[in-house]
């Protein structure tokens, strides 16, 4: 009995001793050594992963993806940990799409952190990480891809390259709060072989909303192709074209030239990224005469058949304004003044109207203020305040000189003529997150009768004797107005003799317009400078494709 009790006591003492040892060890690990162990655990087992939010997709009206996000990796390196930079550069260069010298430069920096790639496609990044180079790490990010490359690049804009890349230009910027989601945070504890043993969502990720535009990829492509052809023939400084539905204000195409690859925006100068359809301020020239006439028509001062004696030139205060070509005195109706784009005739109508009423009409058609399109970089143009009208102002304002407009302002204002007199804000976003946005209501600026009279008069521009008589589409009646405006020479402050803006704004079918197109060519260098020669044919080519494509019946 005593022996048993003795052994039990010994066993108890043994286990008690072991327990004391374990306790002491636990105290040591949890006390003095706790910091080092915690640090080691953090680096080896615990990772806080950023879950990048998928940026919303931008599609055209038919669901064609124009901008889409795909998972990618942001690759960084610690040059201090890379023992053989030359060998590493040799392996990394082809995968990163850089030269060996470029990679070697990065790896040779005296710093503990360099970016190897901001958003490398996942496949290439996976290959890089598979090399298991010490100090090379990857972090998940989203990469913005524009599958159609140059298509609507200036409209779509670009995003930044850093984490949760925010929109920098275009729609990517304007709709950034809609497109960008919220990145999440995930706490992952891994075991010794890297298998996650505990995953906790610290912060849930939320994807951005998709945006469906009113643009039509096929019409957009055609408009860009046509502008590209114009660029080859006339070598302008740049050009832009807008195609819109005048009934709703929906933009179907907004093209710019020169083209830019949205996937590689750095390849072109920053100016090429500008959406000239909204940011280009220019003197409209003769395309503005339609609004001079519309005001006078609406005020019942004239009718389409009202006759005017048109001399070769007219003097207003201290300024003498000539018609484009010398001609003997002639009698022209209002319709003929528009069709032949007579400067003298338009000024006479403007003088008949008076400066106050003319100024009111200019603002009623939306000139001098933003259209409400909501695109980044939109300019408002510039109109002369009534208080600053000089004696000769009515000698140049009615013919589109002395005021600045934007292409989208012109397209919007012409839409009011085309749709029966309602000025409606243009829009390019059709749906957000699958929800259709309400169409702008608009406001009446001229009566439907005045609008119909104007449409009928503008048909004459493309009829024999008009300034764009060579443009036609079989079975479709077109209407529109040419414009050829001198640009101000910044050196002299005078109108240039060599720099012009050629433009054409028109619509079809003339009796019941369902499609409108504006083409503005800035400084054509070769061939011709006239809107009827440079811009009107481009209008014809775009409309020739778009009208049957949209199923618009001739008329």
């Amino acid at each position, binding site marked *: 009995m005593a022996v048993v009790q003795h052994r039990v006591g010994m066993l108890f003492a043994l286990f008690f001793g072991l327990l004391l040892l374990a306790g002491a060890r636990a105290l040591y690990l949890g006390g003095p050594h706790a910091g080092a162990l915690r640090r080691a655990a953090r680096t080896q087992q615990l990772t806080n992963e950023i879950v990048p939010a998928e940026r919303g997709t931008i599609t055209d009206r038919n669901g064609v*993806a124009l901008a889409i996000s795909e998972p990618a990796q942001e690759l960084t390196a610690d040059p201090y940990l890379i023992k053989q930079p030359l060998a590493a550069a040799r392996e990394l260069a082809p995968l990163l799409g850089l030269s060996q010298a470029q990679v070697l430069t990065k790896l040779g920096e005296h710093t503990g952190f360099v970016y190897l790639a901001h958003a490398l496609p996942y496949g290439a990044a996976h290959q890089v990480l598979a090399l298991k180079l010490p100090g090379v790490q990857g972090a998940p990010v989203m990469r913005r891809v524009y599958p159609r490359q140059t298509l609507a690049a200036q409209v779509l804009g670009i995003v930044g390259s850093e984490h949760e890349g925010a929109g920098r230009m275009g729609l990517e910027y304007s709709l950034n709060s809609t497109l960008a989601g919220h990145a999440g945070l995930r706490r992952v504890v891994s075991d010794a072989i890297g298998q996650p043993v505990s995953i906790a969502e610290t912060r849930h990720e939320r994807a951005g909303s998709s945006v469906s535009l009113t643009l039509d990829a096929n019409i957009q492509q055609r408009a860009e192709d046509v502008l590209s052809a114009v660029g080859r023939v006339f070598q302008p400084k740049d050009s832009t074209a807008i195609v819109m539905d005048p009934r709703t204000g929906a933009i179907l195409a907004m093209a710019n030239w020169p083209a830019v690859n949205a996937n590689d925006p750095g390849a072109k100068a920053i100016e090429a990224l500008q959406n000239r359809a909204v940011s280009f301020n220019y003197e409209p020239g003769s395309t503005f005469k339609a609004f001079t006439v519309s005001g006078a028509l609406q005020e019942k001062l004239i009718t389409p058949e009202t006759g005017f004696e048109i001399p070769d030139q007219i003097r207003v205060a201290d300024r003498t304004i000539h018609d484009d070509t010398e001609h003997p005195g002639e009698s022209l109706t209002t319709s003929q003044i528009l069709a032949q784009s007579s400067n003298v005739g338009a000024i006479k109508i403007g003088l008949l109207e008076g400066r106050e009423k003319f100024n009111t009409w200019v603002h009623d058609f939306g000139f001098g203020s933003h259209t409400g399109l909501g695109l980044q970089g939109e300019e408002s143009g510039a109109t002369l305040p009534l208080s600053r009208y000089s004696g000769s102002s009515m000698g140049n304002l009615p013919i589109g000189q002395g005021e600045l407009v934007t292409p989208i302002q012109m397209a919007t204002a012409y839409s009011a003529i085309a749709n029966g007199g309602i000025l409606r804000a243009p829009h390019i976003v059709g749906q957000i997150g699958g929800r259709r946005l309400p169409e702008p209501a608009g406001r009446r600026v001229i009566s439907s009768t005045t609008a119909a009279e104007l449409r009928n008069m503008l048909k004459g521009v493309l009829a024999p004797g008009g300034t764009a008589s060579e443009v036609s589409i079989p079975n479709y009646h077109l209407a529109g107005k040419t414009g050829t405006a001198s640009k101000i020479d910044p050196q002299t402050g005078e109108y240039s003799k060599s720099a012009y803006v050629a433009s054409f704004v028109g619509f079809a079918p003339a009796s019941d317009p369902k499609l409108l197109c504006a083409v503005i060519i800035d400084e054509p260098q070769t061939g011709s400078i006239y809107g009827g020669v440079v811009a009107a044919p481009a209008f014809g080519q775009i409309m020739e494709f778009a009208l049957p*494509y949209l199923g618009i019946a001739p008329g």
Partner: protein
Amino acid sequence: MTPPVSAVAVPAGRAAPVPRRAPVRHPRRVSGPTRTVRPAKPTVLAAPGPVVALLDRLIHGRLWIGLLAFSLIGIVAMQLVVLELNTGIGHTLTREAALQRENAQLGIEDSMYSAESRVAPLAAAAGMTLAPAGAVHFVQAAPADVSRAAAALAAPVQASASSQTGSTEAAVGATESTRAAAGTTGSTEAAANATESTRAATGTTGPTEAAATATQSTEATAGSPAASEAPAASTQASSETATSSAGASPVPGTTGQAGGSEVSSTSPSAGG
């Protein structure tokens, strides 16, 4: 060890020792108020209930060992299940990321493949041309056109069903090329639709329709409920307008059928 009292031997002739009595000690007086002596409360022990009895039996029996072992194994097993679950979550997340990548890649490819710059040359290579604006004719819609087109559609669908025994590959090829062309440009699409509509309206299944009929048959096969969907497709095709004039036929060999025939548009808005 102290022997028991009974075991102590008492020598004979000796009187048993008288136990010493402890001197009586009087308690010391303590200054202060007189204390009241409270009677002690009787200690009440709770009667063992059924639970206590059960626990008592458990921890005194062999069942307790089994229960303890089962609990320990259960805890370990649960831990393992949690670990496995987390690993599964990890795999699911990896799979999710892979699918997300794949989805994005497919979206990109879809957009690239439907680009006009790619499809237009393919369509041109297949002998298709873009119908000029003046070559597309529109007709007014009439209420009777829908039923007429639906009735006319019956024959080609049946014919196409029988033609499935023919070259399926050719049918697929024809479908793809026709679709490619239709996706390229509206005019071509309209022309392609016109071809289908023309067949629907006329109900002819001549030899020149091989490719076009194959197109329809493949669509009917893919769409499964051919009988119910075919009239709808026909309606859409006809509502998208257009007859193609001679020379603007989208599919080689169908020029004779398409040329000169008119198709009723069932959509009032499409009508001029």
